[in-house]
């Protein structure tokens, strides 16, 4: 029993990262109507700014801030591409474009960071925060989950109570109608990419020490992130948050079982498949009425 709990708790850091990435994916989809496959890669770019500077002997925290700035810039660049050339495209086209950009980013990233050989990733938050039923909960896991909750709360507050948030909600529903009222649609869209870029960069820095920190592995964290977003049907921040946490915990649990632990990477795919089948069933039932 205790070993089960240990496995579950071990999944919490990943859970927090999945949750935050998932909430960012919902944020991007709801506000700029893009299913963004580059989410984790943008954060990874920022993380590698940190790793490179730290390797070169720069102090840790300035490197962290430079890394967050790097993630923000990467987000802005991708956002610029999407809003300049694909603003009017169909959702499926935009998703396909981000897949292409992901492939490009991974190729460039692997080239610049010296392929798949492992890097030294400084542990930003070593140690444990508290004990849960006798099991150590690391600071890293408490922090990623905290960050995910914070992002969700901030997003809710920002969208509902600020003028810019109102513009974003208008823009997400009818971009052209918003633009015709003088809303600075392009600027706002790029702002959304910047915000998600900085948050995902920080989240990936926290989780990177526990993964093999190479550009490809980290970029592909977008798969569980999109699975979490899908659980929230790309609409609900809170359900995506919960989806990400459950996904991480289940992954932790599964890795505690010898026979199945090597298949734990398939869990997000099962979730995606399950949600899609379930939502299709809903559609068919609606059609039949």
């Amino acid at each position, binding site marked *: 029993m205790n070993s089960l709990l240990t496995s579950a708790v071990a999944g919490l850091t990943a859970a927090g990262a999945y949750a935050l990435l998932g909430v960012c994916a919902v944020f991007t989809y709801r506000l700029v109507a893009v299913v963004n496959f580059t989410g984790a890669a943008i954060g990874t770019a920022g993380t590698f700014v940190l790793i490179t500077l730290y390797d070169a002997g720069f102090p840790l925290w300035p490197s962290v801030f430079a890394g967050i700035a790097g993630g923000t810039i990467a987000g802005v660049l991708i956002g610029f591409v999407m809003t300049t050339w694909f603003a009017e495209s169909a959702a499926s086209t935009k998703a396909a474009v981000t897949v292409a950009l992901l492939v490009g980013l991974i190729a460039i990233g692997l080239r610049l960071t010296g392929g798949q050989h492992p890097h030294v990733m400084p542990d930003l938050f070593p140690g444990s925060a508290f004990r849960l039923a006798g099991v150590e909960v690391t600071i890293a896991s408490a922090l990623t989950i905290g960050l995910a909750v914070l992002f969700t709360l901030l997003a809710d507050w920002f969208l509902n109570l600020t003028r810019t948030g109102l513009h974003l*909600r208008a823009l997400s*529903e009818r971009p052209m109608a918003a633009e*015709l009222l*003088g809303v600075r649609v*392009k600027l706002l869209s790029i702002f959304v990419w910047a915000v998600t870029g900085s948050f995902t960069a920080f989240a990936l820095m926290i989780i990177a020490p526990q993964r093999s920190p190479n550009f490809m592995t980290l970029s592909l964290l977008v798969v569980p992130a999109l699975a979490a977003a899908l659980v929230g049907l790309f609409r609900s921040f809170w359900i995506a948050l919960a989806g990400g946490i459950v996904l991480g915990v289940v992954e932790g649990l599964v890795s505690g079982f010898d026979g199945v632990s090597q298949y734990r990477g398939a869990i997000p795919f099962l979730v995606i498949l399950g949600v899609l089948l379930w939502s299709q069933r809903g559609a068919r039932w609606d059609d039949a009425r």
Partner: protein
Amino acid sequence: MSIFKANSVSVNRAELAIVNDVDLQVERGTISVLLGANGAGKTTLLEGLSGVIRIAGGTIELEGQPLQRARPGARARAGLGYVEQGRTVFRELTTEENLRVGLHDSADISEAYALFPELVQRQDVPAGLLSGGEQQMLVIARALLTRPKVLMIDEMSAGLAPVIVGRLMQTMRKLADEGLAILLVEQFAALALDVGDRAYVMRRGRMVYDGDCKTLLDAPDKLHDFYLGSANTEG
């Protein structure tokens, strides 16, 4: 001098020339009515003027400032208001939130409620739940709160009850009398000509009439011919 001018504007859609070489002027304090049969190219022209579609040729000026290369948002901020056909409310935002989206610093929400008192009791209702008439009032009020100098409205009366149409026409007259320049696209030709000053008629992407409303109103046969195409303006 006209506040708003379009000079030999052409607009394409999917590579096809839909609007050809159209001239149009709108004066401050007047209503210009743009008529034409379904498919004549009225909406396409307005989309070209507002920047929704990039124009294929010609120039657009607002107070002497060239706008043909500006994004729709920049044209809006320069003072060109555009109410699209189909009552494009933000359905998930409340009436009040809709009004606040483009709110100009010098404007106040209460102006919208003064103009359309029926919106007051609907202020906290999602705009998707409003009636057609209320939605049309909302998009007009929303555009007015951006403080436009020129307001273009496409198919203002489509699908609305006659009482409401009459109401909106009177509102247009009042706004023009207060100094606004209005370009109104209408299916109800007689009503629009009655309230308007200058009239334009489009046919197959070309401007075939530019004159005062009175002349057209007094010669219904002529207008009829423009719609059906037997007028000798062909070619």
